[in-house]
């Protein structure tokens, strides 16, 4: 876990924090042929940010975060394909609220438990959502997925074009909003209580912090953000399939976040970029090796590089500075 980000740290923007946004805008102009992959990466960055908030800062281990992502994706999909509500802003809002409510409901229940029971409950809730989506074929299309998703132009002005330009900028704007919100949260007293609960929940109880309610609130916020990320996925793909729910997407998201670095905010940026680009190049040609690769990488990160890629970079920078001094 990182010690650099938190309430006690300097909350002003460092120069490195501009880099993701410069890179995000540069990609739009320099690599126009990769914009659809870019939109996908941005969607997963938002999703990973939401996981980092509860896992990295509040220390809640979940194997079922995809439940909220998938729920948001289906809410937007069903609105667009079955109910004729095509405005993207309304869809995002509805997905966020719906996923947030699901988060509040399930969070109020699972956060009363600990350890294996909690882990099991997150998994069971995700499995339950998958089962419902699989069986309610009238609404979700079941295993065939939900196609015929129609998305109106954003604010009535910007149409989702064939080259993915609008989709990319739309995702970039929403990742920016999500990042801003989460960064504000982390540097607030609220964020400080979360870190405190992660480090020592007994002591937080002892000093009178409302541990349970803080966790429920952060779980709800995280679920809502994950729901918005799911809505983005539906809007940019104009399709929803069962693969947005269940254990595998939750596991893959964990892999992305761990790869980037947990509890460092920008790990949620680095992880999806590396993971999804590697997946795009490798997974189709060598699916077996790809799966083996992510497994091996997880094992190596856990055993040797607990801070992920950003942890390694931090270590190198520290060593470089030590040499200079």
């Amino acid at each position: 876990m990182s010690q650099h980000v938190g309430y006690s740290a300097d909350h002003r923007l460092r120069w490195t924090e501009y880099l993701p946004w410069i890179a995000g805008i540069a990609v739009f102009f320099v690599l126009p042929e990769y914009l659809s992959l870019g939109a996908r990466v941005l969607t997963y960055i938002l999703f990973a940010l939401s996981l980092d908030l509860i896992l990295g800062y509040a220390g809640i281990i979940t194997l079922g975060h995809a439940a909220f992502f998938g729920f948001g994706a289906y809410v937007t999909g069903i609105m667009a394909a079955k109910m004729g509500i095509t405005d993207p802003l309304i869809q995002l809002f509805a997905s966020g609220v719906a996923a947030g409510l699901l988060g509040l409901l399930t969070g109020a229940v699972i956060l009363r438990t600990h350890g294996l029971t909690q882990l099991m409950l997150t998994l069971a809730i995700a499995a339950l959502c998958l089962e419902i989506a699989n069986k309610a074929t009238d609404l979700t299309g079941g295993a065939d997925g939900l196609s015929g998703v129609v998305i109106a132009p954003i604010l009535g002005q910007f149409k989702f074009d064939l080259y993915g330009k609008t989709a990319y900028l739309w995702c970039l704007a929403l990742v920016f909003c999500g990042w801003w919100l989460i960064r504000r949260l982390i540097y607030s007293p609220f964020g400080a209580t979360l870190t405190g609960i992660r480090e020592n929940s007994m002591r937080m109880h002892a000093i009178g912090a409302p541990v349970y309610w803080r966790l429920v609130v952060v779980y709800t916020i995280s679920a809502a953000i994950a729901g918005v990320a799911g809505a983005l996925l539906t809007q940019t793909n104009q399709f929803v399939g069962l693969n947005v729910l269940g254990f595998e997407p939750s596991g893959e998201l964990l892999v992305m976040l761990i790869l980037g670095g947990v509890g460092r905010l920008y790990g949620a940026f680095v992880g999806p970029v590396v993971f999804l680009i590697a997946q795009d190049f490798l997974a189709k040609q060598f699916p077996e090796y790809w799966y083996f690769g992510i497994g091996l990488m997880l094992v190596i990160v856990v055993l040797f590089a607990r801070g992920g890629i950003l942890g390694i970079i931090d270590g190198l920078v520290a060593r470089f500075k030590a040499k200079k001094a």
Partner: protein
Amino acid sequence: MDAFLSSLVSVAFHGVAYGMILYVISVGLSVTMGLMGFTNLAHGVFAMAGGYILVSSLANAVPFPIALAMSFLIVAAASVVLERLLYSRLYGAAELEQVLFTIGLIFMSVAVARLIFGTLQQPVILPDYLKGQFSLLGRDFPAYRVFLILFSSAMIAGLWFGVERTIWGAMVRAAVDNRPMAQSVGINTKRLFSITFAVGSGLAGLGGALGAEIVAIQPTYPFEQLVYFLIVVSVGGLGSLRGPFVAALLIGITDTACKYWVPQFGAFFIYVATIGLLLWRPAGLFGKRT
């Protein structure tokens, strides 16, 4: 009425067979998690490995009993190597690290299984004496399932005798209850754990092999079945033998009944029941309250 009765008998019979398989696979997980507090999500990998060993030895005309024994022994031996080389580095580590590490193992094993066996489900070629029907009280039961229930019952009886009546079992129970105390009276808990881990993994391998005909052996096995194994352990309660047994039978029968009478709901009831039960008793049916 008679039709209903016979479907009731059939559901109970197949449910018990499935529950036995679930128990044989999951009991090792319950003990290792209770003993070392290690969250081993990769337990299903051992079951899958056992299944593949059985299926491929049967395809190569190895006799069935030898194939079963091999699935136990090879998996147990391999698990000791894994435990000494990898798992032991993470004893006492944070739960998140154990979770991530074992998810990593799942991904790797899925890839290896796909590379060797392809993505298709493996057919089980049973010997002739286990095919066909077995009639009892005027009803016909599939002979293999009868064998499965009898064999598992015998094994479970053996396991219970081992844990409740032998010195090894007493040491395991002592270590589950209070590890520092067990260590201080001279029990070598490290070696004890290696042995227990091997037996538990071997049983998972055996369970996977026995159940290959019920639970399809395919590369996604460790992912798809994980929920069921974890439900058995968490509903039953960590570190106990009796709890997971009751839980496994309950799940086996409920799951079979739901698939028989209300297939449109799938596994819906199992998940709802699990969530409800864990809220009622967070430590499981027979778990120690902490």
